[in-house]
């Protein structure tokens, strides 16, 4: 959705103005001294271009039978905005990601039994160790959320980015979120088609090397 017409060099003054630094000053972003925001009058075309460049995309991700940790690695660049040429850590250009079917995620090997989530309330004897399957039963969104949270680099923008992750255990999405969607992220693992999902015609027409004769009795 964003247009690459504004070069990264040209966009920096606009980013600086957006976060409250004057582009004419000698202050660099990291010196921490805010200067007066310089408002420029933009032409209609430039204004619209700016708007569309900094707009947020809404991606849909189907977590059906996907590994949450591998998915998290794929989703975190979208949430931080690292897929965009206008990316900067302070730019706050992350997109929204809507994850559906988080109930149906697939952990590798015996991780359901072995992976443990630690939590401490802060009070004495407040430590708890919860197995992955127990946590999933309590809240089917937590494993996905925790995986994405960890995949995003630990910094102060992480909390903002995770707010833009919307997880739903099933395939139902609220109407207001659904109307926002503008793209889809390809699943990490290709989802195999189950035998029940093949139609009768497809099964009959499927090329066979060999089949038993009709009057053959299988023991």
């Amino acid at each position, binding site marked *: *959705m964003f247009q690459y017409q504004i070069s990264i060099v040209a966009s920096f003054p606009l980013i600086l103005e957006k976060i409250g630094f004057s582009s004419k000053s000698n202050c660099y972003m990291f010196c921490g001294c805010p200067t007066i925001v310089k408002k420029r009058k933009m032409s*209609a*075309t430039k204004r*619209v271009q700016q*708007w569309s460049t900094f707009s*947020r995309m809404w991606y849909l991700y189907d977590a059906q039978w996907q590994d949450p940790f591998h998915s998290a690695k794929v989703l975190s660049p979208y949430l931080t905005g690292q897929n965009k040429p206008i990316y900067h850590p302070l730019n706050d250009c992350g997109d929204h990601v809507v994850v559906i079917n988080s109930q149906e995620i697939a952990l590798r090997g015996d991780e359901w039994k072995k992976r443990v989530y630690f939590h401490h309330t802060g009070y004495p004897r407040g430590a708890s160790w919860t197995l992955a399957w127990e946590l999933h039963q309590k809240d089917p969104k937590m494993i996905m959320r925790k995986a994405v949270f960890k995949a995003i680099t630990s910094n102060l923008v992480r909390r903002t980015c995770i707010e833009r992750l919307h997880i739903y255990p099933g395939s139902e999405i609220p109407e207001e*979120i659904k*109307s926002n969607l503008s793209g889809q992220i390809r699943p990490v693992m290709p989802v195999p088609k189950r035998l029940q999902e093949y139609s009768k015609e497809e099964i009959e027409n499927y090329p066979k090397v060999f089949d038993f004769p009709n009057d053959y009795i299988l023991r």
Partner: protein
Amino acid sequence: MAALWKTCQQCLRYGFSNVSIYTSITAVNVISKRNFKAHWVAPTLRELKRRKVIEDDRNGGPKIFHRSTFLEWNYDAEIFAFSNRLGEKFNDLSLRAALTHKSYIERETARLSDIGVESNLQFQDNEALSQKGGELLSKFINGYLRAVFTQVPEELIRAMHDFLTSNPTLETVARHIGLGDLMLCADFPCKTETYVKSFKAIVAALAESSGEERARIFVQDLVVTQLYGQDVNELWNPVDPVGNLTAILKREGKAEPEFRLIRQAGSNSILGVYYVGLYSDKNFISEGAGESLEVAKEMAAREALKKFFRTEDSMRALPFGRQLKNIQSKIAQLENQPNIPLSEWISEKVMSAVH
């Protein structure tokens, strides 16, 4: 032992090739010494600067003096240097007249009469020259614009002309060629109108001295170049782009414009963006983006008009200098030939690009 170990470490780290056992000779004739300033110097200077800033603010800015008040001011030399700097040949009298203002003449005659000296000054002011220069300026600018922007309606040509002949633009040009030091005027710092008048008079003086051809090139190089980097669509765009677009397509015999939503994101959020495409008889013409459907639709119509008029963001750069060598005659011809107005615009009627 420790020293040996350290040396060995350094050798290992940097390699024998990088470490030189001979000290390098850097500078030869430099005597460096430390500068000891007393403890009260810096604070004193700081305080003086602070007081100066306050005083300047009270007086409405730092005091500025005309260049002629400094030493080595030779007006004749400056005049000579001015014409050489521009690479133009001026008649001495015309140039001096162009730079002299009525206010200066009045002030000087009043001053001399106060003293009691009879003024035999034969100064000529730049009123007539600036009038003529203004006309020439308009003519040359219009000629260039119509030759370069062949597809553009006359309204936009007029808007670009108004921008180029506006006081801020001409003042910028006048300041940058150094008229600030050369003008003879009563007011200092000189007003915008004074600069503009002088500049127009310079153009007329040049036309008188070297001919209209030179004056045309002068205006192209100095004034029209102010349009470079300016989005011309900012200067003018039709009030009702959708209506105008429909009219143009109708005149050309094409189908009515059809707007279709191409993409959208975040429709429910405050950062929603819509992309609307414009089609005529299922042929894609342009697309526009916006925060709402109406804005996107209008931008799509504007983009379509920009496409027709060849004033998109990706349009060809304006030609100057050597690129205009072959079309100066065409420019001269188009000075008196306005472009088609928007109400009659049709792509068959507009001529192909000259450059």
